[in-house]
């Protein structure tokens, strides 16, 4: 009985969470913008890349 509960509960919750994640992933931006509190203290302070 406990086994059945463990299997059913987790299977259903996993399925619901995956469905919810798909919905959220479509509407939300993939990456947050990183804004350090004490200014740009990142390595090299600038990221060298071609124009975006």
């Amino acid at each position, binding site marked *: 009985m406990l086994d059945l509960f*463990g299997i059913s509960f987790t299977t259903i919750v*996993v399925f619901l969470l995956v469905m919810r*994640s798909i919905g959220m992933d479509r509407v939300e931006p993939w990456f*947050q913008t990183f804004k350090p509190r004490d200014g740009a203290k990142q390595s090299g302070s600038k990221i060298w890349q071609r124009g975006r």
Partner: protein
Amino acid sequence: MLRSLLMLVVYLSFLGVSMAVPYAATLGYVWVDIFQPQSAAYVLLNTLPVAMIMGGAAFGTYILMDRRSPPPMTLILVLQLMFAAWITLTTIYAVAGPVAWDKWNWAFKTLVFSAFVPFVIRSRVQIEALVQVYTLSLAANFIPFGAKVLLSGGGYGIGLGLQSGNSGLAEGGLLSTACLMVVPWLLHLANHTRLVPKWKVVPFAYWGLAGLAIATAVGTYERSALIGMGVLAVHSWLRAKKKMLLGVVIVCVGLGIAYKASSGYAARMSTIEDYSSEGSAYVRILIWKWTLGFVASHPAGGGFQAYVTSVIDVPQFGASPAHEEFGRAYHSSYFEVLGEQGIPGMAMFLGIAGLVLFRLRRIAREAKQDPEFAWVVSLANATEGGLAVFFSSGAFVSISFQPMLWYFVAVPVCLNAYMWHARRQAAPVVPRWRSAAAPQIDDSSPLMSWRDRRDATVRRTIP
């Protein structure tokens, strides 16, 4: 029958959804890998190569449909791929012969899939979905096990979980280590989940699951679990903001375990102190000595299952007379890697472990600078806690190629890639001298590299 149908429907749903949303197949593979529905089903799923189908869907849908925002190539990823290649090489000349390929078959898939995960799991939602699916897939095993332990007590070698036998999660050493590793993730989800609606009961549900995971670890009567619990308690206390409160909770949990645990549990744990008086513990020391001698003569390792060639002289213990023992397992993840993959393999394994722990510290320190990234700090600390459990408990169980460790390696790589993309979003764009000096070219020009053309396409499609 009904549960078989339920699992079949969910399995098919993963496959169906992945045709539109490629990362669903990767989550499906994690579910199949950890929960193993094929071993709990009575019809259809138990006859199909479910992991192979889902793995194929994960790779196929990613390659055909979704190669956006790949992670930066890091030394961890390179070492993982090198390690996968190295275990293949050592299997070719394995001293155990063709039987070594049985272990290579799943170990190789585990390593490659772990390196593949960061390519598919990129956004915050996807990272949390991965952690949730892993945690709940494991919970399918420890919910019934932990509940049975709380109701009627556990015991060494007693199968209370979903799987039977003495391999995979049916083996107490792996089950207890995996359960303790996932406790920090559960506590992280209790505070930072976004996929589960913000109901007041949600944190209590995660804490309850963490309690069942600890009960399972205790109920296996594994001595390695006691070490893992100690490491988990120390790590959690060191990383906690409310040290006094957590200290009280840890002491209460410890007292509760000491009060509830039977005399059999206490007797088994006491053998840690005097290993020479207990056969099983002392034989480990002997097999580790044998492994060191084996590596001295086979520096490149003996390939998978090399332990089958071991011969050790076991002295008399109580009623058990002195005897020779053949083919004793390593009983340690470190000696497993050392004996099977030799010094180069051990160097790669420790390199991955060291780099992952170092990277997690860097990620947590950096993410602390932005309050919006509190979840990154929390997940980095939780993953570090899980790895600390593995690297302590795992010293006494041969589980170095089990997927539990390698998913905990994949998540830091995902977090690192996430932070890399987040920094790029905020960074001022400074053209390189080469592109600044070169004339501007349009996206369709053959002079443009494939990576720039891809980035330009993504910029056009994503507002």
